[in-house]
């Protein structure tokens, strides 16, 4: 029997290119301390810790949770380490939620981080062992053909990506933790930035960030005991498919569509665009906003770009997407998914400050990873439902 679970508090670091002022332990601790303070709890009230991050080669530390056990406050407690590629932040939140939903623990801390400045992500992605499929280093180069395919299939105007990028950078300027804060960014400026991987321009790609995110989750009793507003987890969903196979649809992958369908059904949502007030969607390259709007069922296939073009995905629009500035404004890879989940919780608890969507009561957190093959998502709301 699944137990109710809720987000009791969230915390995140100042995301920057290089956080040379802190170690990995210090980076995690910055997010954890903020999450505990937000939840009004102390570390000794935490039953278990779940750590997520992307490949260990990104920092050059094998299974860093072992060395971080003290900094995470995990000594003497259960400590799990999740790794599901770029979706790992989302998966970390979901594993932490399942510890409560299973009835095993009452309060669980989920932490995710990446400190890209410790090593070299391009090196980490470029190793090509014998007889193994290469990872195809450089995510932009990997995803650009999928975006071109989307443009061809949908007939979207070529400036749609630039609209997304300018919007997310302006949103990032409202977020005090964001790495990139560009309040005056315009679509024209994005279109004037250098082309990196046609059609992805410099301004349309995510930054490389050092950063961490932490979430405190609790069971129903812990949620009801909180004197803070909490975000109730209404539904969770995960799906995986292989990287490459005959029939793979990289524009509209079935794993994402299946995960979304299961999510909406579990949450009792029949029309996502009408029933979701804010969406934090994993958009590392601008064009993934319209692509994922379609994959998630906010729009029919080929129609997602119209929501972007009409301004419906602005903070004031009908379906605000990434009011925090999203991955395009901060990308500590392993934490990027958990940031989406945390920001969705902040929206329904009214804690999103300058990037608060007015009246948000139900929100989506979404992450994807690998070659558009790992999907993690949840729906949170201001009531348990």
């Amino acid at each position, binding site marked *: 029997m699944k137990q109710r679970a809720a987000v009791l508090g969230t915390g995140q670091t100042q995301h920057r290119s290089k956080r040379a002022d802190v170690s990995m332990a210090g980076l995690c601790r910055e997010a954890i301390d903020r999450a505990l303070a937000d939840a009004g709890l102390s570390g000794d009230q935490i039953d278990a810790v779940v750590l997520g991050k992307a490949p260990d080669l990104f920092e050059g530390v094998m299974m860093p949770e072992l060395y971080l056990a003290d900094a995470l406050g995990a000594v003497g407690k259960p400590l799990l380490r999740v790794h599901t590629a770029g979706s790992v932040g989302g998966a970390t939140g979901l594993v932490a939620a399942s510890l409560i939903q299973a009835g095993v623990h009452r309060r669980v801390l989920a932490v995710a981080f990446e400190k890209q400045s410790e090593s070299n992500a391009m090196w980490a992605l470029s190793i090509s062992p014998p007889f193994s499929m290469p990872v195809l280093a450089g995510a932009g180069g990997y995803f650009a053909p999928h975006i071109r395919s989307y443009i061809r299939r949908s007939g979207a105007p070529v400036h749609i990506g630039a609209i997304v990028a300018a919007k997310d950078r302006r949103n990032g300027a409202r977020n005090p933790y964001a790495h990139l804060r560009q309040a005056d960014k315009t679509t024209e400026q994005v279109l004037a930035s250098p082309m990196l991987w046609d059609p992805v321009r410099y301004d349309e790609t995510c930054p490389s960030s050092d950063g961490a995110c932490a979430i405190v989750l609790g069971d129903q009793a812990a949620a009801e005991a909180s004197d803070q507003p909490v975000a109730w987890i209404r539904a969770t969903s995960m799906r995986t498919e292989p*990287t490459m196979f005959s029939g793979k649809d990289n524009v509209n992958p079935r794993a994402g569509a299946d995960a979304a369908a299961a999510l909406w059904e579990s949450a009792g949502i029949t029309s996502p665009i009408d029933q979701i007030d804010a969406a934090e969607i994993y958009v590392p390259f601008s064009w993934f906003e319209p692509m994922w709007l379609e994959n998630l069922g906010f729009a029919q296939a080929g129609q997602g770009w119209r929501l972007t073009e009409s301004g419906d995905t602005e903070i004031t629009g009908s379906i605000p997407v990434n009011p925090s500035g999203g991955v395009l404004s901060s990308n500590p890879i392993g934490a990027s998914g958990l940031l989406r989940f945390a920001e969705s919780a902040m929206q329904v608890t009214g804690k999103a400050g300058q990037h608060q969507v007015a009246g948000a009561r139900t929100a989506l957190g979404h992450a994807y990873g690998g070659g558009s093959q790992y999907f993690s998502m949840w729906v949170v709301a201001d009531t348990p439902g």
Partner: protein
Amino acid sequence: MTDVAVIGFAQAPGERHSPATTNGVEMLVPIFGEIFKATGLTKDDIGFWCSGSSDYLAGRAFSFVSAVDAIGAFPPVMESHVEMDGAWALYEAWLKILTGEAEIALAYGFGKSSAGNLRRVLALQLDPYLVAPLWPDSVSIAALQARAGIDAGLWTEAEMAQVAARSQADARGNPKAVAARTGGGTGDPGGEVAELLSRPYVADPLRAHDCAPVTDGAAVVILASGGRARALCDRPAWITGFEHRTDSGSLGARDLTVSPSAASAGRAAGAARAQVAELHAPFTHQEIILRRAFELGDQVRINPSGGALGGNPMFAAGLARIGSAATEIMSGQADVALAHATSGPALQQNLVCLMEAVDPALTGRRLSAR
């Protein structure tokens, strides 16, 4: 809480130098076939998949992504991965069944330990700023732990050799143990200990027989919820305790002669009730530490499979301990079996799984939510 049982186990034969790639597929496909044949299940019956592996062992980022190819994951599946031994993947799978999101779940672990210099690779698990740059390798750290216990009068090199002799003898009866195919030991425990102690040190006070062989391998375990387990398995191994804890990552902050995390997890799971125990002890003295942490008496059979000293496929060996202990129940050899998995330097992180033959629906002995 929902009753959950282990209903199937398969493992790849341990190898010193597997020709397989580091992504596990070649080792996993045959054992998926084996476990499906034994249980009568197909991949479509699996409601949740979870794997354990390490990118550093594989020498590449995202190694587990390729392992998904062994599943045949289309239509898409509900799936997750831990950068830990597969025993912790099984723990996540157990959670999924408790939530009601899955009735049958499969966990697997794989590791090609021979792909690099294992003891140096594992040095990268240490504090990256202050300790790892000195490259203290895993065998040397274990030797420091063994020396600390000898100096404290807690065990002797002869007692360590006795663990090795018993494990070698048991491993010879396990066709999946790498030791079974590479020989070793004389079969006479009394004479063998004296002979073992005459051999040279690898890292004083550890000799070769004190250290698990570098092993390539994989393991898979299937869990099922109460009703499905009863229908699928004559004698399911019911999980009545499943706990894990970690100790500090700072070696200097720990008393290396004991394992508080193992003791705490063992107490919570009821480990002392076991009749047989499969302990994941990659070094002989660590078995002694674990037996004491779990308060296991002399009547408890330890590692009838030969344990990690018979074969220690990284990221699969802990899961294989659970599978081996569950097999003791499923085959009728035991009624209460303990399995243990470890991770990190010098037994830093420990997991225990207690399994029983008696159906919890009959006894009411089941896990309770806390």
